């Protein structure tokens, strides 16, 4: 039992960055094709991060080392907790802690761009947090447990009972994956007003750590999406993988189609979707079951 857990954690630790980097590469390729460009090689994200780790690190203060380290450590920790079959709510709380570390790293720089990005990041967290908690509650109401292992050990897929919650989660994942129209705290384009928002003052291996943590996080988030599909049946595994890939592609498509919106629109939409789709779904579930 213990060995199984250790094995799962090790598997996550080793495989997640490759999967996350690959997804990132595919994302860039797909986006490029949508925009009529050739796009970088699929392995480009790995080259980028490799290079980042070999550059001289330029920092604005010493506190950043600790804060970025905290972000990385708790992102990875959250993933380990999740893939070891642990408590879903606790995973989300650990994820919030990680996010707060990144936010603090941006604030500590005392730079106009990263401060602005940090404030926007907080609004982003505030926007998606209710939906994530509600999703965990919905999964709990279906499976009777907050533990990931119990959630996937059911006879039927949770999505059948939680379509509204699933939609809400995919909606807020656009924010979580930092995609347009909700990528207000960090944009990938140099000419835009935020420079690079949250990560303006991070460089070299620190920026590399943030990228790496982002990959771990992406895998965690897709793993969370898979929870809605996975059940005891073997066929649920390919179905879950396909669902995750389809959702990811959808998010990339949305990224390329919609222009960025203001923070208040993002907050309003995210909370409205949470209330209408998530809230109604949970309400019906509470009444019926």
């Amino acid at each position: 039992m213990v060995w199984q857990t250790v094995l799962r954690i090790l598997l996550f630790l080793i495989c997640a960055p490759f999967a996350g980097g690959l997804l990132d590469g595919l994302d860039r390729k797909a986006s490029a094709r949508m925009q009529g460009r050739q796009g970088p090689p699929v392995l480009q994200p790995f080259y980028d991060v490799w290079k980042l780790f070999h550059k001289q690190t330029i920092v604005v203060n010493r506190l950043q080392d600790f804060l970025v380290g905290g972000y990385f450590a708790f992102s990875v920790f959250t993933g380990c907790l999740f893939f070891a079959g642990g408590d879903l709510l606790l995973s989300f709380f650990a994820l919030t802690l990680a996010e707060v570390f990144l936010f603090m790293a941006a604030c500590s720089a005392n730079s106009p761009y990263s401060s602005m990005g940090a404030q926007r990041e907080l609004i982003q967290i505030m926007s998606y947090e209710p939906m994530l908690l509600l999703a965990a509650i919905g999964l709990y109401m279906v499976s009777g447990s907050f533990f990931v292992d119990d959630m996937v050990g059911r006879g039927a897929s949770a999505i059948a009972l939680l379509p509204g919650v699933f939609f809400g989660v995919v909606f807020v994942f656009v924010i979580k994956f930092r995609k347009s129209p909700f990528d207000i705290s960090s944009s990938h384009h140099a000419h835009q007003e935020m420079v690079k928002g949250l990560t303006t003052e991070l460089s070299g291996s620190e920026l590399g750590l943030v990228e790496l943590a982002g990959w771990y996080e992406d895998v965690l988030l897709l793993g969370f999406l898979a929870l809605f599909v996975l059940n005891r049946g073997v066929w649920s595994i390919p179905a879950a993988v396909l669902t995750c890939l389809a959702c990811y592609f959808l998010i990339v498509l949305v990224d390329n189609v919609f222009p960025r919106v203001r923070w208040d629109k993002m907050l309003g939409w995210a909370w409205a979707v949470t209330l209408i789709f998530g809230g109604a779904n949970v309400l019906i579930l509470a009444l019926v079951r």
Partner: protein
Amino acid sequence: MTVVAFLILFPFFAAIVLSQMKKPGRVRDGFVYSCSALIIAAVVYLTADVLTAGRSRSYLTDTRSLDQAILAGEFLLMALVFYYGFRFRKYYVVLLSAAQTLPVAWMELSGRGVEGQVHLSVDNLTVTMCLVVGLVGSLICIYAVGYLKDYHAHHKEYRDRSPFFFSMLFVFLGAMFGLVFSASLTWMYFFWEITSICSFLLIGYNESKIAVRNSFRALWMNLLGGLGFALAILYCTLVLGVANIQDLVNLGMAAGGKAVLVPVTLLAFAALTKSAQMPFCGWLLGAMVAPTPTSALLHSATMVKAGVYLLIRISPLLYGSLSGILVTSIGGFTFFAASLLAVSQSDGKKVLAYSTVSNLGLITACAGVGLYEAVWAAILLLMFHAVSKSLMFLSVGAVENSIGSRNIEDMHGLIVRLPKLAFVMTVGIFGMFLAPFGMLIAKWAALKAFVDSRSVLLILFLVFGSGSTLLYWGKWLGKLVAVTHQSERLPDTVHKGEWTAIGTLTALVILLCVLFPALSAGLVQPQLVLMFHTRLTAIISDADVKVMIMMLCMIVILPLVMRLLTSGSRSKVVPAYMAGVNEGDDRHFVDSRGRPKSMYLANWYMEDRFGENKILKPSLVVSAAGLTVLMIVAIGGAL
């Protein structure tokens, strides 16, 4: 028994002595320190005693002479309210005070009171409250010694009434102990009224116009709650023939909720005013004009907890009843609305006040649900909140005395200027909303309880409220950790006594993450078995506790690891990026006319979305309407 009597009476004795010590100085400081230490020792002794004996006990069944003393005390309090009411021409408080004291007095004097019941009792809930009042309260008294010196040094315009201040603090402690030990409703009501009046007097401490106005607002709202309490006593005695809170609960459990619905609703109403739930949150926000120790002691750690304490006591009666619905809706709504309101505030104490109202709302909602897991969460929230919030208040007070402002914007870069205070505030803020710290554990349990009781409305209030809670704490945290170049470290003017209090509370916030399973098993679970007569399973599983301890260790070890990893690395320190127009540091830039301009980084307050003028009034109207309707339905349906 001796220790119970000591805890109630000794603070009053200390208060009398302190009111006579007119001269500030070492003698008075020493007296405050030693009284506080004695109270802490007595509380620890009581805890050990009750836990080793492992059962609750009750005292004083025949108390004719003491009852008369209490009655005289009630008249004294009424006289005090009359005096201030006439002096400041606030006649409504006179009316409110007369309307509640006279009927209760008539009932006692005409011999209609119920005799021969238990007046004082000690169980685990009492001990929990004693720990909060004794430990946190005494620490705040210790802190107050140094704080008040600086307060009067900074505010020459206010008259130095420190003897009065200290004696009121101790009167208040005595009243709080009296309140939690009392089983008799009349006694509880008497101490309840003392705390209201202490709060009134302490809010008006600096005698400024605004302080007087706010103190009367606090007084009338608390007296209104007192009126509810008095009516509940009358109903219990005259109709039900019980005069003891435990008897009331037993009666309700035996005879069904409907029989006790009227007094329970009235008591809940009293509790809602005391705990500053909407629509009564105004008095707590106004109370922030008082010196910080008052805010920490009365308006966040202890007095406002009296309301939720009462709710926890009657929580078995709230389960599934109309009054329970009243309490949970008001509490849940308050949690959500107050956390939204905190977003637009930049005054540190105002944020703390809104956050207190919000957290009290959560405790209220938990108590109103009335399931054992919800009450577990309520008791733990009560403890964690007292510790973390008083730490926040005390450090804001210390910062205010050091930099002359308590505005969050002025705390920019505090980690450079006052690193020690910035550190304890960071711990305090982490303690308020992040895993693996106390408040989050209790919130988590609350969430589970809400889900298990299928109250979707509460779930929604909780998840959305958590979102905005994160926003206002996060913003504050960001200000603290900004590392500004070329700014000087300020001299540490915080007194030793203040550091003792702040340091102990910081240690408690951290220790409670590790100790809470023991606290739960030793203190809270036995109490719940007593209240709900069911054996229960652990609410937070062992596996989760282990994970959280791992997280705590990671936070502690991380700075060391990062220091080791980055030592000897070739990283270069540069000023922040400002589109290439820095003026040599990270605080000035060249503007479009080629002149240097200083930069100012402000947090977002989003006044046009979350401002008080946008949200406060609608929430007050909604909650007042809800409260009125639900009270009419509950009481009207039962009568």
